[in-house]
């Protein structure tokens, strides 16, 4: 089953909505504390020294994020505390809130012992350093 990503701030949505204020009606849909997990939208970059994964995971905290490497698979699980009181009168419920989960398969050139991660402003950045021998080497070619 293909899962949808959570997060409005994907590559495709760069539109600016400058329309008149939208009138809202009570939709009957409440903001949801979701029992299912969400797949965070993520970027992957590479430099000579490392791979980087940046994942949008708003509303969690560094001590609620579990990173686990097993074989060639890196799994990310972030717990998100429920934020809504189900007794509140709801006006707009455009997204649900729940845990984030995603798995990445990583290559053998990643030094899994040295993976580290940082959580800032709702974005998790994981650094996956390459093994020394997997990095590009510069070799001087001398003139004869």
């Amino acid at each position, binding site marked *: 089953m293909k*899962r*949808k990503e*959570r*997060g*409005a*701030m*994907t*590559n*495709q*949505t*760069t*539109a*600016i*909505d400058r329309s*008149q*204020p*939208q*009138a*809202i009606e*009570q939709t009957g849909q409440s903001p949801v504390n979701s029992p*299912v*997990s*969400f*797949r965070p*939208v993520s*970027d*992957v*970059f590479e*430099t000579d020294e490392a791979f*980087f994964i940046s994942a*949008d*995971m*708003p*509303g*969690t905290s560094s001590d609620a994020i579990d990173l686990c490497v097993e074989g060639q*698979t890196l*799994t990310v699980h972030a717990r998100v505390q429920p*934020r809504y009181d189900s007794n*509140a*009168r*709801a*006006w*707009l419920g*455009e*997204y649900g809130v729940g845990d984030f*989960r*995603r*798995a*990445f398969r990583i*290559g*053998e*050139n990643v030094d899994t012992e040295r993976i580290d991660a940082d959580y800032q*402003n*709702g*974005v998790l950045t994981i650094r996956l350093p390459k093994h020394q021998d997997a990095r*590009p080497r*510069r*070799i001087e*070619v*001398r003139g004869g």
Partner: protein
Amino acid sequence: MSTRVVLRPTISRLHNEVDRLFDAVFPGAMTPQWMSGPRPGTTSMPAVNMWEDEQHIYAEAELPGLTPDQVQVSVLGDALTISGNRQINLPEGATVIRRERGDVSFERSIRLPAEVQSDSVEASLRNGVLTISMAKAPEHQPRRIEVRSGDASGAATS
């Protein structure tokens, strides 16, 4: 004179490694469509949740990667406006393997269910979640009316 040569893994091996850095299927994680960002038909950015209690209206939006100085919140009468922009900085010399997140610029105005006191509006951005709290104008707050007993008032005579 010397020439610099950069030795990289062979093309096929590099390709192989890139291919490996993809999602594995994660059992148990699923997302109904309507929970995945804006609902169909509501493409406005950012997605907003809004609720109220007797005295306040609360609005919330997820803005990962933004700092407080990149977000503007304003309230005029019964209209709430949220705007901002996010620029993603790549690490020095990085190449992109997968790009799902975007640089975005947004402005969204939403009509509130009641007028609010603009000097009561408080907004905070914490771990990528913007939370806005607004006190309703006094005339929109429920007023409790004391029910006195007819005997005590002494006014009811016939």
